[in-house]
């Protein structure tokens, strides 16, 4: 490959005749520093959108009025410490579920603030708490009603009439379940905020179908006709 490529020579430029005037001495550039981000600095964490902001949505429901806003109380701290003590010292992460249960029991649902608290308490990243909250159907991300009905949807209860029970409960409490989605948004709250309904998957009492949980109370043999009595039981 000996053939030379003819390259046109550039015309020489008389730089003194150029129209611009250099006002400053040529800038001396420093070598770029390696990119070091101090992730623990307050400036960094306030500038970055939190994992909670991006991934946790807690829409306000009419039921929210029945639950106190998340606040770290001495009783919550005490309960949390008791749960954490159940696991080996180097396995504090195991206490994620128990702590979230403590929070949900007191405040109705898991809010971003409570996730942050649990993460701090266990000394883990917030995303590790978020992944748990978003996976388990047992953790709610929005406030249910004062009375939360969990109707069993699975085969034996469905044969016993749990679909009809759900329809009846919705009719009696004025709940619109049209927008409910088993995965994304299972809970429907009544406009008054007193009631909410959700389908549960097998509550393990198939012999006494249909069954439902009202808050933490278990009721068996709740045929659609008994729905009115069930609600009345909690009214007084």
């Amino acid at each position, binding site marked *: 490959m000996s053939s030379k490529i003819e390259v046109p020579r550039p015309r020489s430029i008389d730089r003194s005749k150029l129209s611009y005037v250099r006002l400053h001495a040529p800038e001396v550039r420093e070598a770029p520093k390696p990119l070091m981000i101090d992730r623990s600095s307050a400036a960094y964490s306030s500038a970055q959108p939190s994992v909670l902001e991006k991934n946790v949505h807690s829409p306000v429901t009419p039921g929210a009025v029945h639950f106190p806003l998340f606040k770290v109380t001495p009783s919550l701290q005490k309960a949390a410490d008791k749960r954490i003590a*159940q696991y080996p010292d180097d396995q504090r992460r195991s206490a994620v579920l*128990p702590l979230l249960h403590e929070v949900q029991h007191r405040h109705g649902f898991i809010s971003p603030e409570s996730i942050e608290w649990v993460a701090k308490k*266990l000394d883990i990243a917030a995303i590790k708490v978020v992944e748990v909250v978003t996976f388990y159907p047992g953790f709610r991300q929005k406030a249910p009603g004062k009375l939360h009905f969990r109707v069993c949807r699975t*085969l034996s209860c469905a*044969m016993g009439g749990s679909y009809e029970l759900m329809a009846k409960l919705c009719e009696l409490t004025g709940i619109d379940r049209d927008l409910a989605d088993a995965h994304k948004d299972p809970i429907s709250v009544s406009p008054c905020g007193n009631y909410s309904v959700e389908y549960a*998957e097998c509550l*393990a009492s198939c*012999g006494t179908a249909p069954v439902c949980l009202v808050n933490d109370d*278990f009721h068996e043999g709740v045929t659609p006709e008994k729905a009115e009595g069930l609600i009345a039981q909690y009214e007084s």
Partner: protein
Amino acid sequence: MSDITYLPGKEPHEKEHRLIFKNVDRKGWNTKIKTYLKEGGYEMAKKALKMEPQEVINEVKASGLRGRGGAGFPTGIKWGFIPPNNTKPVYLICNADESEPGTFKDRYILHQDPHQLIEGMVISAYAVGAHVAYIYIREEFPEAAITLEKAIADAKKNGFLGKDIQGSGFDLEIYVHRGAAAYICGEETGLIESLEGKRPYPRIKPPYFPAAIGLYMAPTIVNNVESLCHVVHILRMGGEEYVKLGTPRNSGTRIVCVSGDVKNPGFFEIEVGKVTFEELLYDMCGGPRDGRKLKAVIPGGSSSKILRCNETFKIGRGEDAKEMTFWQLPLDFDTLAAAGSMAGSGGVIVMDDTRRMSWVLNNITHFYAHESCGQCTPCREGSTWMKKVSDRIEDGKATPNDVQVLEDIAYQIDGKTVCAFGEASAWPVEAMIDKFRDELVGETSDENDTRSAERVAQEQFLSAVQ
């Protein structure tokens, strides 16, 4: 034990043999430790603590006890899988995440007889050398969690838990860990992940048993509630005596839970293999409701393959092979496996001739689509596709080809996932199509639109533009 009386209407059937459920629905029975001690409670724990751990394991091996959680694996052999040169702490976990549709046996043990479980756990923990044990209880049992914590505190006060139990030098702490309504936590490695505070994605096998690597990467034994309770009775009776209950290779008693379309659904503790479907469904459960006929039965929780009531099976090999009708099948692990299904967790769901199979199938596919953990693609996507196709069939909007599509999807999940959930979701669909193909195809029509709603909208839009 003839002085035991039960609540009116809750008396056990004469064909029952009550060991585990001796105190369930019993008159004057409660969850207090005093009541349990009066009946000779914790005597077996004391006896076990005087034995060598290996002796206890041998006793359980001799009993032939098979796990009552679903897979039916021999409990004593599972205990033997702990590596002999192990230096890490050993954990015992009680799997109280009872969530297989159709099963409701653990509920009664946990709510009415928690001390029996704790005694069984003390013995089992001693046998496998665990000093920390967890009870993983499902979130839907809030009352049981409170009852159990109370029972554990009482047992500790009475010296059956804590440091130096009954002067034997053996320490054990039991803690209650509540799940959060996820079916997959019943899978033992998923349960362990959940106990570690993560998403319950089942672990990749091997190791096939967490006895090698389990909780916190240490050897872990996971047993079902019922299996752990059986250990108490094995020690009381002796393994040799216990094995005489039931039939060979299917020893002991087991609790069968019947639900669905029978007159008297409920739980029955029977000797394994001593009761046939005819006895169970007609004598014990009172047969079908008036004017109806039984059509199909799911024999071991919704994951097991459905059986038609008018089927006949060829059971056994070679010369021992014999024809059996569905009604003659005994309820044991091996016969049901030979009939192409499984004894599973003992949840018998009965359907009569008023049930549309497409509706039943649809309910089951919705369950599995909701509960798939999403770790493996075939199961995550497949369970949702099965739900969508079965929605169409149930709505009467399907074409005959949809039944074939559904079957194809099921066979592409089966055996291609990390855990047994893949089979659990595919088997019911495969069996349902296999046994009720004509009925399902009968609900479809060639004239139905095969286009999706999106495509119809798109075509309408395009035609309007032109």
